[in-house]
């Protein structure tokens, strides 16, 4: 028993000491919703983190697979207590927890991805991935033979709905007869479920599979069936080289290094940032060999137009029932885009 007591005392005392005496380096923390090894959303953020890590005098760290809700508050709080100077939280559900922590630590810079709330020391930011999705829709619309595109989607929230609409509009711009069938998986990262979802789309005749999921499951399903696919988050061609035509991808490095540099020299201000193709935050992955040159040219021209200021959501745009939601010649405002809860005509599925 004496040995045990000594052991417990040793454990506890070890717990209470250990304070770090590191030199004055900037500490930057990242909170991810899924594991970083998923080639998906968190992976893309982590590539951005590595760009920050490569900066002089900056160290970074991350916590992955943090559930949204109360657990995330603790993780963010823990980072703030440990003296992190900048904290990035990269999922929607971290918004309110981060806001609570931001109020307690006015000197720390907080950045929340994909939400809408702000504070003096808390920015929100996201990328206009829908622009890249529009471009990927052009590829899908050009390559389909059955005129049915399948879309495995995570949750019916505006971000995802907006992406489906942009994809559909892109496909319709080259192929007016196209329909997009949507299934909801209610998961962000679940390879098995997402693969099954893609299979169910194949069963109803889809011959191009697109996805708003973080696992490459849908890509694998497409390759097994021998049809084409559009990835997401990062270049997923390694998972389905015969199917993968391209993918809307994230490129967070430039934004993350910019923010950290601004915080370092004291010029950072909380903002609501929504950069897109123009700023290089979002892009398309390299085309697969199956995409013909004329389609590639068309996409590249369209990309140049968007960078030049073309707005994708310019009316007339009708919803599924045929009601005009965006009037002719008018471009949807950012506020309308952020709160989008309806599908455009040509999407088969519900937003519930």
């Amino acid at each position: 028993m004496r040995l045990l007591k000594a052991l417990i005392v040793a454990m506890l005392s070890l717990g209470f000491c250990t304070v770090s005496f590191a030199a004055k380096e900037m500490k930057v923390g990242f909170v991810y919703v899924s594991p970083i090894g998923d080639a998906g959303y968190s992976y893309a953020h982590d590539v951005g983190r590595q760009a920050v890590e490569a900066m002089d005098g900056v160290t970074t760290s991350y916590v992955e697979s943090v559930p949204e809700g109360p657990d995330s508050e603790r993780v963010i709080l823990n980072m703030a207590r440990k003296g992190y100077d900048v904290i990035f939280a990269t999922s929607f559900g971290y918004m309110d927890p981060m806001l609570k922590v931001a109020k307690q630590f006015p000197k720390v810079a907080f950045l929340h991805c994909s939400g809408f709330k702000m504070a003096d020391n808390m920015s929100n930011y996201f990328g206009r991935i829908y622009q890249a999705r529009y471009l990927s829709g052009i590829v899908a619309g050009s390559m389909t033979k059955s005129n049915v595109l399948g879309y495995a989607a995570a949750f019916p929230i505006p971000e995802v709905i907006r992406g489906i609409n942009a994809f559909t509009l892109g496909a319709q711009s080259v192929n007016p007869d196209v329909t997009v069938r949507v299934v909801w998986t209610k998961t962000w990262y679940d390879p098995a479920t997402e693969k099954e979802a893609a299979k169910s789309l194949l069963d109803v005749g889809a011959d191009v599979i697109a996805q708003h999921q973080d696992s490459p499951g849908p890509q694998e399903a497409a390759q097994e069936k021998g049809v084409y696919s559009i990835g997401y988050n990062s270049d997923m061609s390694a998972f389905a080289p015969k199917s993968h035509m391209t993918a809307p991808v994230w490129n967070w490095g430039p934004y993350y290094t910019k923010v950290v540099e601004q915080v370092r020299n004291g010029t950072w201000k909380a903002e609501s940032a929504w950069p897109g193709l123009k700023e290089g935050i979002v892009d398309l992955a390299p085309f697969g060999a199956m995409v013909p040159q004329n389609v590639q040219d068309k996409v590249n021209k369209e990309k140049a137009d968007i960078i030049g200021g073309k707005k994708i959501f310019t009316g007339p745009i009708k919803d599924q029932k045929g009601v005009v939601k965006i009037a002719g010649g008018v471009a949807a405002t950012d506020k309308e885009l952020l709160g989008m809860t309806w599908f455009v005509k040509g999407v088969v599925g519900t937003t519930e």
Partner: protein
Amino acid sequence: MFHIRITKRQEPLSVGGSCLVLLSALILSLLLSGLLLFFRGTPPVDGIVTLFQGAFGSRWAIEDSILKAIPIFLCSLGVAIAFRLQIWNIGAEGQFALGAIGATWVALSFPQWPKIALLPAMVLAAAVAGGGWGMIPAILRQRLKTNEIIVTLMMNYIAILFLEYLVYGVWKDPTSFGFPMTPEFSEQAIVGKIGTTSINWGLAHCLILGVLVWGFFKFTRTGFEVKACGDNVRAARYAGLPYDRLVVLVMVLSGALAGWAGFLEASATVNRLQPSIMVGYGYTAIVVAWLARLHPLSIGIASFLLAGLRVGVENMQLDLQVPAAFGGIIEGLILLTVLAGGLFTHYRLIRGKK
């Protein structure tokens, strides 16, 4: 040749002996975890120290661990009541969801009530909703001879989908840009924090409910009947104990406690209802109940330790960049070694010649 024989003990191991077995099991699992850390190139001692530091090494850490233990404790207390009767309630997750829904309904319907009326009403709604959800499988079991394991498990999915239906639909906050969450609760609907700590008053609820459950089994006739039926249904039925009524009772109590946990999560920690409230406490509760051998005090300790482990693993991730999956591995190792160690409480190994 030496042989090892396993023989049954005449008397179960003493309390001190049980503690020794438990501690050795914990140490063994930590050693194995350390070995895994070593193989992936993380210094094992640093790893384990960071884990403990993050879980119990400071006032903050202890507060965080207690905070996380609260819902686990209540769910676990609930399933333990049903397990005593050998009724396998796997449905704490769904009962938790229903509790959160019940509490939210009251919070959104009567936001202006004074705190002293609103909070008890929310508790009541949560307990009724959770308990009612627990009663369905009990009744199906009696009337239709269904298996409660399957029914409670399936009802979890129904409950979670119902919760999603509400927050994606009728209860959605109009100012949330279409994101699934209810409006924030009014000040009166929020369970406050104790003094300057970050721990909410749910801790007090846990202590009171824990004592009540302990007293129920220790002092009441019904508690005794539940235990007797759990030990031997046929004998208890022969003795005229109302087994069917007890099944309903334990399922309702079980569900009510899980529902109470749902109320605390919605009110005290999230301040609203949203799908991310569901993080699997109902399933964790089953593990905790078994680790604690269904005893309320042990459930308290086990919830705290398991919560601490989860909190500590986050610290380990942050400081040493260990993958998140490692937390699950340690948890699994602890469960395995502790349950395997349970062998020694009823059996002894004898080394002897053939």
